């Protein structure tokens, strides 16, 4: 049996008196696509920060490919896409991607940059400053930046927020392509239909702990919606 790409073992996180996560445990196998569902403030972003090694858990442990998420080797295998762009407005698309390709030591960087820019349909704007891009274009460049070093694990924190329909469609297609390439993907989203369309598995976070963990194949999008909302309302009542 293969080693899980990600193991979250009894993770709790608090910021002083504010509790963000309580005893969260689950694992993700290599090539698996897992969606984390939950209301704002449920702890989804905190969980992704811990998984990415940016934040440390107050209790519990996270293993990424069998080792600590803060390891340099693990960080090189990881990419994060969130509402934060990780781009410099005063640089062009090419300059941003060249910068990240040097940091991530991307082999044959020029060719790889051309490929990712073409994937997100931004080749024609590659020499323009990112500050002149629309929100959708910036998000597409963010995706290109994240895929530049061909990460094994993709962490997506509400990546559809603020995107137009065209950009959402493009991101869904890109994610399907990543899934076909057996990349491990962890997605947080409010969009249950998209989660059901893309994921193998879903996890529901409510009041900072897991209240559901199930396989998409065992259910239907409507049933997930029903389970999700019932779980949420139970969580809210608790």
């Amino acid at each position, binding site marked *: 049996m293969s080693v899980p790409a990600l193991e979250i073992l009894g993770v709790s996180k608090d910021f002083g008196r504010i509790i963000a996560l309580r005893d969260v445990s689950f694992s993700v196998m290599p090539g698996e696509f897992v969606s984390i569902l939950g209301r704002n403030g449920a702890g989804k972003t905190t969980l992704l920060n811990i998984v990415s*090694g940016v*934040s440390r858990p107050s209790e519990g442990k996270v293993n990424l490919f069998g080792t600590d998420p803060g390891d340099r080797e693990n*960080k090189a295998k990881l990419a994060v896409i969130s509402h934060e762009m*990780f*781009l410099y*407005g*005063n*640089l062009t698309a090419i300059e941003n991607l060249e910068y990240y390709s040097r*940091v991530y030591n991307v082999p044959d960087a020029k060719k790889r940059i051309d490929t990712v820019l073409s994937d997100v349909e931004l080749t024609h704007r590659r020499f323009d400053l990112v500050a002149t891009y629309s929100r959708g274009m910036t998000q597409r460049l963010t995706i290109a930046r994240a895929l530049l070093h061909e990460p094994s694990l993709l962490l997506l924190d509400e990546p559809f927020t603020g995107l137009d329909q065209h950009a959402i469609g493009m991101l869904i297609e890109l994610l399907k392509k990543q899934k076909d390439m057996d990349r491990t993907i962890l997605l947080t989203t409010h969009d249950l239909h998209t989660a059901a369309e893309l994921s193998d598995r879903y996890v529901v976070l409510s009041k900072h702990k897991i209240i559901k963990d199930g396989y998409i194949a065992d259910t239907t999008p409507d049933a997930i919606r029903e389970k999700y909302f019932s779980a949420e309302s139970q969580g809210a009542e608790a």
Partner: protein
Amino acid sequence: MMRTAISILQKDLRMEFRSKESILAMWIFSLLIFVIFNFTFEVSRLVMLEIAPGLLWVAFVFSGMFGLNQSFALEKENGNLRAMALMPVDGGEIYVGKFFSVTLIMLMFEALIFPIFIIFYDLQLSLGMFRLIPVLLAGTIGFTSLGTILSAVAVHTRNQQILLSLLLWPLVSPIIIWSVTLTGMILSGEVTEAFYPLLLRVGAFDVIFFTLSYMLFDFILED
């Protein structure tokens, strides 16, 4: 090993040369200081030589504070500071990149403002003035080595500029005071035997601040 540091340095310098935001603002701010002091006080040349070194370093340090704040404000924008924490490199390497970019920008600004200072205060250029180069280098490196790590701390807070001042001033004061003393010796042409030991002391502080900051920067990047 220093691939990331060089990339950060190139990126910062490219952005600065494109916008000229930091250098221009620092230059104008210093010019204002010189103009105000020059026209406010009608003092003799002797007194002017007494206050000029302090004035020069006031301009450098206040403008430098602006440069430090600006450097990490750029990283905070669009979450780039978090992107740095996610990079597969040691925090120390990121620190080195930011340190060199802040230091080079500050040295460029110093090179641009120093001739204005000479003109405003009617100072005589002499070969002895070349001694200012190691003094400016050592003083600036001490200021930026500590300032780089402390502005990375302060950028996470709401009152970034106030916090940076509160953290930086008490620690960097000895370096600034010694740099003012050394600059005074050179401008007055009275370089005593205390000059080199004092310069060495500034250099020793530079090494200590740089080494500690390099080792601690990983913790700063964590949430």
